[in-house]
Structures are given as structure tokens and as C-alpha cells.
């Protein structure tokens, strides 16, 4: 059992470690909030993607596809495909959380997403006392959750007041372009992006808007095929650089 003071110190440490992530994800949350307000669905339903799905890219896909009138099953399948990585995070955290109370695993699992995963694992790897690692994870994850929902609410409130003539629906594709372009230097990612975009556009007329899900799967397949080769190439160039 660790003292309340030590627990609080580690909890606050986790909150501090999350700050750089908050700066990075806040604009993303704002854009999602604005798109929730502009989409042809109840604004509150769009905002509700925050506490329920709690994963930015899957939230965007859900809001955009609902706005476009996609079939419900296609929306759910697409969100699930995007969130497949959560199974990997779950697998990694399972080793740290073995033996914890059920309430902890239910809560920790709910808050598990890219930033909380990275902040949590980074501390678990350095800390021999798991309980202190748990406090650190929870501190970071809770502050992320609160800030994420808050910035989405700000975006949704502002988005509802802005005129349609501003074409704010275009914020999301532009934001996504900003996220994609810096990653195009990696061969596997570049092939994944090109394949996903090409297949998704080619499948625009596929019923139930399933083209997005098909495009995502095609992108992952194209990138995964080239990945071992790319990793080898990177290893070779690194070795050459050391010589």
C-alpha cells in the first residue's frame, strides 16, 4: 500500500506528463466539436462520440459518415476497423494490470487511448512499483478525458453559432491532410495512404458508404506488404550512417 501523499504525487506527475499531448490533441477535439455542430445529426449525439468512443479518428469517421447518410452498420464497422489498435493497447496493458481490482481494469480500460497508453507505458517501464505506475496512468488519462470532452464542447458550441457559408465541413479533410503529409516520408505509410485514398475514392459508389472501411483495409494491406522491406532498408541506412 502506498501513502496517499505518494499516490497524489504520482497522479499529478501523470497529469504533467500529459500536458504536451493535450496541446497536440486540443485542436483535433475542437475540429471534431465544430463538425459535430455542423453535421446533419443532433449536436449532442456528435459530442457523445467523445465519452462513448473516446478515439478521435473513429469519432470523425462516425460523425462524417452519419452526416453523409451512411448505413448504420457501415458506420459501426468503419469505427471498429479504425479502433482495432485498441486491442493491441489492451494486450500491452494487460501485463501491467494483472492482479488489479476489477473496478480498476474497467476504469483504466475505458480511458485507454493513444496518449494515455504512451504516458502510462513510459512510466510502467521505469517504475518497479506498479501501484505508483497506476497512479501516474490514471492522472494522465483523467486529465486527457476531461480536456478532450471540454474542447469538444467548446467546438460544438462555437460551431453551432458559425454561418454555413464558412464551409467549416472542410476543416476535417484539411486537418487530416495536415496529419498525413508529415508521415509520408516513410515508405510503408506512403503506400498505405495512397492505397487507402485511391481505393476509398474508387469505392465511392459502394452501397452503405462501405468504401471508407474498404479503403482503410486496403491501405493497411498495402503498407503491411512493404513494411518488412522498409524496416530492413532503414536498418541498412542506419548501419551505413554509423560507419
Amino acid at each position, binding site marked *: 500500500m502506498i501513502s496517499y501523499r505518494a499516490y497524489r504525487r504520482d497522479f499529478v506527475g501523470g497529469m504533467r506528463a500529459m500536458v504536451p499531448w493535450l496541446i497536440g490533441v486540443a485542436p483535433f477535439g475542437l475540429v471534431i466539436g465544430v463538425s459535430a455542430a455542423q453535421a446533419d*445529426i443532433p449536436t449532442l*449525439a*456528435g459530442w*457523445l*462520440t467523445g465519452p*462513448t*468512443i473516446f*478515439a478521435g479518428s*473513429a469519432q470523425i*469517421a*462516425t460523425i*462524417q459518415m*452519419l452526416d*453523409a447518410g451512411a448505413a*448504420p452498420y457501415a458506420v*459501426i464497422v468503419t*469505427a*471498429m*476497423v*479504425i*479502433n*482495432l*489498435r*485498441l486491442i*493491441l493497447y*489492451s*494486450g500491452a*496493458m*494487460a501485463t501491467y494490470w494483472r492482479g488489479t481490482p476489477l473496478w480498476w*481494469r*474497467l476504469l*483504466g*480500460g*475505458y480511458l485507454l487511448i493513444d496518449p494515455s497508453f504512451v504516458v502510462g507505458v513510459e512510466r510502467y517501464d521505469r517504475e518497479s512499483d506498479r501501484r505508483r505506475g497506476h497512479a501516474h496512468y490514471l492522472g494522465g488519462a483523467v486529465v486527457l478525458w476531461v480536456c478532450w470532452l471540454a474542447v469538444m464542447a467548446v467546438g460544438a458550441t462555437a460551431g453551432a453559432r458559425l454561418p454555413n457559408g464558412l464551409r467549416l465541413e*472542410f476543416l*476535417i*479533410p*484539411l486537418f*487530416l*491532410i*495536415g*496529419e*498525413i*503529409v*508529415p508521415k509520408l516520408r516513410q515508405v510503408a*505509410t506512403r503506400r498505405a*495512404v495512397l*492505397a*487507402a*485514398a485511391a481505393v*476509398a475514392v474508387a469505392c*465511392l459508389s459502394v452501397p452503405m458508404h462501405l468504401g*471508407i472501411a474498404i*479503403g*482503410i*483495409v486496403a*491501405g*493497411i494491406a498495402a*503498407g*503491411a506488404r512493404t513494411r518488412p522491406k522498409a524496416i530492413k532498408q532503414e536498418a541498412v541506412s542506419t548501419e551505413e550512417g554509423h560507419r
Partner: protein
Amino acid sequence: MNAWTVVLAAGFGSYLFRMSMIGAPGWIHLPARLDDSAALVAPSAFAALAATSIAGSVLGAGVPQAFVPLAAAAVAVVAVIRTGSTYAAVLAGMPTLWILTALTTA
């Protein structure tokens, strides 16, 4: 199924994914291949979403207006390459969209 039900179902499915291995017996492990592919999910999803959204704007517009989203997207790509900042896409793309929309509809 309305928007509320879809959001709740997607949220429930996401929670099941989060709990899948946390609640599984310790001897169950994920294949390494799946681990390798995880980093490709977000870029693929972003590309598919952005491409279909832009294509939708292009296909739904007339001849001069159809070029507006394409031009805004192109400016966004160049802005990110030139500045290295992810937010440059929005900061350069949205004004381009507004200006070209005003010019083509005038």
C-alpha cells in the same frame, strides 16, 4: 437505427476492444503481424476519410466550383511541406477555400 444508437453501439464496441485483452487469460497473446500493422491504421483511416470528403465536394459541385476544394487541398499539402507544421494545412487551406469560393460564385 438512429444516430444516437449508432454512436452508443460504436462506443460499446470500442470499449469491448479496450477490455478484450485486459479481461482475457494471461496465456492469450496477439500475433506480432497485427502489432506491425497497428501504426498503419491511423494514416490509412485519415487518407480514406480526407479523400472521400474532398471527392464528395468535387463531385457535388459545378465546373468552376469543383476545382475549389482540390485547390484548397493542394495548397494545404504545400503549406505543410513548406512549414513542417500540421496546422498549416488548416491555416492555409481554409482562406484559400473562402477566397476561391467567393471568386467562383461572384
